[in-house]
C-alpha cells in the first residue's frame, strides 16, 4: 500500500470559536506548476503564511526550489505579505496566484 501523509485538512464547517481563524479554501496556482489546487488557509494567516502553504504543495514536488521570496496576486492585484487573508479580502473559493518575488 502506498503511504500518503495525512493532510490534516479540516472541513470548513468545523466552526468552533477557537480564536485560531476560520478555514478559507482557495483555488491556488503556483508559478510553473501545471494545475490549480485546493489549499486550505486560515483567515488569520498572513498572506506570507498562506503563500507558504501553497508553496508546500508544489515547491520541491513539481517546481524546483529557488532562493527567493514569494509574491501573491489576488483579484488582479499584488497583495502585501503582512496583511492577513481576511484583511486582504481573500475569501472562500477565490483564485490566488503565488509566484517567486523578483
Amino acid at each position, binding site marked *: 500500500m502506498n503511504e*500518503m501523509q495525512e493532510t490534516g485538512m479540516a472541513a470548513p464547517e468545523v466552526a468552533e470559536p477557537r480564536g485560531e481563524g476560520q478555514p478559507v479554501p482557495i483555488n491556488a496556482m503556483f508559478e510553473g506548476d501545471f494545475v*490549480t489546487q485546493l489549499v486550505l488557509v486560515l483567515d488569520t494567516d498572513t498572506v506570507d503564511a498562506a503563500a507558504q502553504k501553497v508553496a508546500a504543495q508544489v515547491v520541491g514536488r513539481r*517546481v524546483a526550489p529557488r532562493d527567493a521570496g514569494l509574491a501573491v496576486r489576488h483579484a488582479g492585484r499584488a497583495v502585501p505579505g503582512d496583511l492577513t487573508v481576511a484583511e486582504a479580502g481573500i475569501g472562500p473559493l477565490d483564485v490566488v496566484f503565488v509566484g517567486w518575488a523578483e
Partner: protein
Amino acid sequence: MARMAREKWYDIARDLDWELSYVDYDAVFPEWMSGQGKIPREAWASWDEPYKVTYPEYVRTQREKETGAYSVKAVLQKSKVFDQLDEGWKSVAKQHFGAVALIEDLAVYAELRMARFGLSPAWRNMAIFGTLDETRHTQISLYFPHELVGKDPQYDWAQKAYHTNEWGIIAARATFDGMMMNPNVVDVAIQLPFTFETGFTNVQFVALSADALESGDINFANMISSIQTDEARHSQQGGPTLEILVEHDPRRAQWIIDKTFWVSARLFSILTGPGMDYYTPLEMRKQSYKEFMHEWIADQFIDQISDYGLKKPWYWDEFMAGLDTWHHSLHLGVWYWRPTVWWKPQAGVSPEERDWLHEKYPEWEKQFGRIWDVIIDNVNHDRMELTLPETLPWLCNLCHLPIGTAASPSNDKYPVRSYPLKHNGYTYHFCSRPCRQIWWEDRDTLHDPTVIERLLGGDIQPPTVEGILGWMGLTPEVMGDDAYGYRWAKPYAPPPAA
C-alpha cells in the same frame, strides 16, 4: 417453402407507422423526451438509414462475431500471452474496461430511449438493433476482464468503477449522463451516434486495437475491433436525424454538436491520450495521440459537419492547440495522483521516451520536462513522499477534470488558471472558457458537484487523503502505482561519488 424476397417486405416492416386514435400524440411523444422543437411532425417521414438490416440477418451476423471473439479468447486463455504483456500496456486495457464497460450499458438505455421516443418508426427500429448491440458490448466488456480478476484485482474495476466515486468516473458519469440520459432523443442522436460514436469512438477502438495488436494483446484487440463493427451500424442513426434537424433548426444542431465535441475531447484526452503516448510501449507506438486525433478526428469531423452545412465550433483553435498539451497535463496529473486510479500508470519519461515526446511535441520539454525533472530527482533521492500529493487539484464544474489541464505551463495564450464564474452568489470554477460557456448555457440542467465541492461540503469523512481514497472506493490492492516500479528514473541518477 419459398420465402418472400427481402425487398418486398422490408420497407413495411422497418417503417410501419399509424395515426394514434386512442391516445394523444403528445402524451405518447412528449416534447421533453422526443425533442421535436421546431421540426414539423411530417419531416420525420423522410428519416432514412443507409445500412438496412433485418432481424434474422442481425442474429446471423452477430452470432458469427460472437463465435469469433469468444473462441479467440478461449484459445488465448490457455496460453501464457497475458503473463507476458507489458505492464504499461495492461493499464491501457484496465483503464478502458473500467471507464467503458458500464458506459456500454448506459448506451443500452440511450438506445432504448430512442427506440421508444424517436419520431420516425425507421429510427425506432434501428434503435432496437442499437440496444442489442450495446447489450452485447456490455457483456463482452465485462466477460473478458472477469477472467483476469484472479490474476490482477485492478480488472475488477471493469464492473466496480461506475459504482464508485472515483474522480475520473465522476467526470465520465457527468459527461455521459449529459449525452445519453438527460437530453431528449433528438439531442441524444446528435450527441451520441453522430458526434461521439462516429467521431471519437474511432480513436479509442480503432487506434487502440492497432496498439493492442502491436503490444501483443490479441485478445483485447480482437474484442474492441469486433465491438467497433457494430458501432458503424448503429451510429448511422445520427446522420439522418441531423439532416432533418439542420433543415429546421440549424442553430440547435450546431450547438449540440459543438458542446458534445468539446466535452468528448476533454474526456478523451484523459482516456486515450496517456494510453497512446505513455502507456503503450515505445517501440509499439504507431502514431502519437496528436497525429491520430488530427487524422481521425479533426479533419474528418470538419468534413463531416461541412457536408451538413454546419460550421467549425467556435473554440476550434483552442481545441487544436490543446492536442499539444491537454493529455500531457492529464497524464502528469494521473501519474502524480496515481493512488486515486485503478490502474498502474506508466510514467513514460525514460530518456528514450522523452526523445520521442520531444520529436512529436517540440514544446514538451519546456512545458512538462521541467516538472518531471523535479519528480525524477525526488525518486532518485528516495524522497518518495514528495512524489505523492497531499491535496487535490481543483476540478472543473463542467468536465470535472483538473483545472490547468486544458492548458500548460509557459503557455501565454492558454495559461494554467481557473476561469471562475460567480452566479447566484456562488463561485464556480472552470478549466477553460468553452467549459464555462457550455455550463452557462446548460445552467438549468442538473449538475454533479465536483469532488472538491463534496469535500468542502463535508461529504467526505474524514476529510483526509485516506478518507478521500476510501470515499472513492479505492482499496489498497487496487490503488495505482508506477507500472515499472520507477526503474525508468535510474538513467537520470547522478553517478556515485568517486
